[in-house]
């Protein structure tokens, strides 16, 4: 019996081996390498000498005003984007749950932004928001909502609003898909029982739907926070972090370090982001677990 178990364990280990090797090679190795670089002078200009410099890169990054601006912007970017994505996505999921003619086609039409790359979305919105040639300005002018063009990507306040609008457009889909799947998992019997008890639609939503999908909601919110924070593609192609750093988030700041050739500093920023996300995730999961057990 023992021999059989050992052989079986070996076989399982062998089957798992390619997966483990690939994950280690393409996920853990780059993370570890980046972490080591954070403590080195690793400038692309001269890689013949890459000495360890301790916390020098971290000191340099934390001493930069731009880093703190990017951190503040990240807060706005994540919180506002998430708020609108979540509530609009929820609304859309509730609408799409109903049976109506052409629902499949409508679902496909609603979900297609999720299939596009962030960089491409950024380019599209960049042209749509263009102050001189953009379709959004044209529409607003023609409908009489504005009487002169708005430089959406030219002024700091408008630029942040514009990138968030584009991000909401993109991310609503994710919430709609996930929440719709969660909604479909709620047993119909519960609603039937609630109907028998005379519960209104609102009470059914509050006492049946929400408790049933709460765990899923908590997880997808956490996932989305991590993804939005790690989603520089859209901002980078739309504004490049500008004007004057007003749409810089921590990950576009990281990209700028890479383009500047300073991989050491980029590694330091990367580790700081990782630390931030890990602490947040632990805090958030603990908080939602507490909520569940209560």
């Amino acid at each position: 019996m023992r021999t059989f178990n050992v052989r079986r364990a070996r076989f399982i280990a062998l089957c798992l081996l390619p997966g483990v090797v690939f994950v280690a090679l393409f996920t853990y190795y780059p993370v570890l390498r980046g972490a080591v670089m954070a403590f080195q002078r690793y400038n692309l200009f001269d890689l013949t000498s890459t000495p360890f410099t301790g916390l020098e890169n971290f000191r340099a990054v934390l001493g930069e005003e731009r880093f703190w601006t990017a951190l503040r912007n990240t807060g706005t970017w994540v919180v506002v984007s998430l708020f609108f994505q979540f509530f609009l996505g929820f609304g859309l999921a509730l609408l799409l749950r109903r049976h109506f003619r052409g629902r499949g086609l409508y679902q496909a039409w609603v979900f297609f932004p999720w299939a596009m790359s962030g960089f491409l979305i950024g380019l599209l919105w960049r042209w749509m928001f263009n102050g001189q040639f953009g379709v959004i300005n044209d529409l607003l002018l023609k409908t009489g909502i504005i009487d002169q063009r708005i430089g959406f990507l030219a002024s700091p306040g408008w630029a942040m609003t514009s990138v968030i609008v584009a991000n909401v457009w993109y991310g609503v889909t994710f919430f709609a898909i996930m929440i719709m799947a969660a909604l479909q998992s709620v047993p119909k019997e519960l609603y039937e029982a609630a109907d028998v008890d005379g519960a209104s639609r609102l009470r059914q939503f509050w006492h049946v739907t929400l408790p049933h999908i709460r765990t899923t909601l908590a997880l997808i919110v956490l996932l989305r926070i991590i993804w939005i924070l790690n989603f520089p593609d859209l901002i980078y192609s739309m504004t490049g972090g500008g004007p004057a750093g007003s749409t810089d988030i921590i990950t576009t700041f990281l990209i700028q370090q890479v383009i500047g050739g300073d991989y050491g500093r980029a590694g330091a920023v990367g580790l700081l982001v990782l630390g931030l996300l890990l602490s947040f995730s632990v805090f958030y999961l603990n908080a939602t677990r507490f909520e569940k057990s209560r």
Partner: protein
Amino acid sequence: MRKPFLAATVATTLLLAGCGSGSSSSGEVRLRMIESLTSPERTKLIKTLIADFEKANPGVTVELVSPPLDSADQKITQILQTKKDLDVLEVRDHTAKSFSNNGWLAELPTTEWPGWSDLTELAQKKAVEVGGKAYLIPYGFYQRTLFYRTDYGMAQPPTTWEELYEAGKKMTSGDRFGYSFRGGKGGADYAVMMISAYNGEALNPEKSFYLKDKRTIFSTPEAAQAMELYVKIFKEASPPDSVSWGYPEMVQGFTSGVTGMLIQDPEVIKTVEDSGVTAWSTAPIPKGPTGYAFQPVGYAGWGATSFTKHPKEAVKLVQFLSEAKQSIAFAKGNSLIPISKQAQNDPQFSQGAWKAYLQAQQDPKQVITIRPVDYPGWSQFLVDSDRDVQALITGKKTVADVLKSWDAFWTDQAKKVS
């Protein structure tokens, strides 16, 4: 249990071995080449040139890798760091120094190559710009010129920055503006161009961020004058939205009629021609009050890696692409200033919009400079300075703030290099 494990190991090894480049069992040589400034038309053109090379060199095949434009240089750097599977590559003016510093580029033979003497003086000079050794052969040059609309009440092009400002202000009314300002990525380069022109003869063209007396060009009162005018051009003669404009918006601004003037590379000529705009012309870039105009000539070229397993064939490919017939075809296809002396007889490069480039080349006060791309902070400055320019034109920073930080940065860089 051992047999499946062994079989898997052998299969993986064979699979990985098959992925690499090099010689095949039949003795055929396979070269791997990567381009940087990718675009579908350009890739198509390179592939036709490669096909000609393969025809002329039986037994040699070339695999072209074309990464997306925005991440191409990073991808090339990553491949170079592994020192594997790359024979020929596109080297740009701002990557040449770091690539050669890290020992990734092979020195190309020039004396025993007959094509060398056919290269223009500029091409020969730029080929050996890094450390006096030919690490690349340029394939063409990007030199800026002024594009202007003749139907916007401008009979003569502005010859100075002050005239450009005045002309631009006159054109600006309603939805029409004078100048396609670049406030987005690459915008700081235009500020530097103006500062250089205002510093005039004091500037050292060989190290163009410094004066002949070793101070930086950002430290002078003339630099402040230039920057004040630069801000005025944005505020009074350019679309407010141009604070975020990059290359596509600038060109679109000109071809759509939103702006009347544009300073750009020759590749725009084809775009303007195709746009249907008929009343336009070109002129050399404006000068400063000193009577001088300075600009670097952007370039890129083909190089061979130091670790190629087929150095002879790799060099042969670089030389083939750099010979008159191929290089002229490439320059024409990409609207570049050609590297071959023979191109001077080609009507495309001596007529119409191209005339301005010849005019500039014949004017001793239109000076070609060398930017400090070989200084360790160059890449960082490109990122930081664009951001500073946006802060300046949106009123978040003053001219004095920006010039002070640029002066401090390049004074520090000078210490690092010396």
